[in-house]
């Protein structure tokens, strides 16, 4: 590599990678045509890098664990319930909550691309977008789960939900044993991102 990133004595600015130059070209062209506002791009990046992430989903799950009426409403119409909590907008137009039980474990994938409930979980992790996950979780979900360290009892059925641009899923993981008496804040600390995709379980307290 002629442009090593650790080389601070370089006589000229570090040349970004090829696709980054193409992105800059797009951005320049679209700005000149008045099709984009560069300030809006910064705002979008800031939102997903710093403000929206799986803490939102964790808050929803913790409330569902604590409040049976909320849980029932969430399972009935997740979009409306989470919107009331302020979690709505991009890629959250139609959200469906699916609940894990002793009988059923739910996992979410997007086999087409990477549809994901952004308002609740933020931007999907790299593995969610990989061919390895997208193709295999449908074919051999238990094997994929095992690779994530999740071993389910034989009698637990596994259901894989394929997200689309129209419908996004949130898994409500099982409430862990020993979490009785914890408040919503403490409970939400037990809810991991992966547990809301179905590739993990909630943490033990």
């Amino acid at each position, binding site marked *: 590599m002629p442009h090593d990133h650790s080389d*601070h*004595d*370089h*006589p*000229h*600015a*570090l*040349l*970004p*990678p090829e*696709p*980054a*130059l*193409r*992105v*800059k*070209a*797009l*951005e*320049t*062209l*679209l700005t*000149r045509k008045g*099709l*984009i*506002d560069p300030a*809006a*791009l*910064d705002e*979008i*990046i800031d939102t*997903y*890098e710093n403000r929206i*992430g*799986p803490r939102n989903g*964790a808050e929803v799950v913790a409330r569902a664990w604590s409040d049976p009426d909320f849980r029932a409403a969430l399972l009935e119409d997740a979009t409306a319930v989470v919107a009331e909590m302020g979690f709505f907008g*991009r*890629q959250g137009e139609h959200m469906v909550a699916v609940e894990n039980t002793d009988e059923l474990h739910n996992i979410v994938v997007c086999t*087409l*691309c*990477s*549809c994901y409930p952004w308002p609740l979980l*933020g*931007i999907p*992790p*790299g*593995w*969610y*977008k*990989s*061919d*390895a*996950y997208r193709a295999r979780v449908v074919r051999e979900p238990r094997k994929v789960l095992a690779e994530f360290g999740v071993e389910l009892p034989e009698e637990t059925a596994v259901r894989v939900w394929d997200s*689309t*641009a*129209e419908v996004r899923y949130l898994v409500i993981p099982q409430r862990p044993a020993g979490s009785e008496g914890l408040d919503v804040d403490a409970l939400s*600390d037990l*809810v*991991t*991102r992966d547990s809301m995709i179905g590739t993990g379980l909630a943490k033990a307290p």
Partner: protein
Amino acid sequence: MSAPEPAFEAPWHAQLFALTVHLNESGLFDWPFWADRFGATLARHGLARELNGGEDYFNAWLETLETLLIDAGHARPGDLRALRDGWETAYLSTPHGDPVHLKAGQSV
């Protein structure tokens, strides 16, 4: 919660993501249309080898957006190439540490 991972692995992934979301919100295309096109690119790239969810994924994303804008008449391939070359020249001719700007007159 476990320690948060960065939402984007590389700055250009974030820029490209934001560009696409912004164009969607300004009404240039709807999201299901985008997802269909993007899914088709991923499927095509994935025939040759298994794609990872980072660089491969965003390369497919970039190709999809470029093609979509060209097909819709918002960009011409020659213009994009000229701007890409202009940025390369700008980086290579800007002293290290200075902000990089596209040269005046670098127009399309």
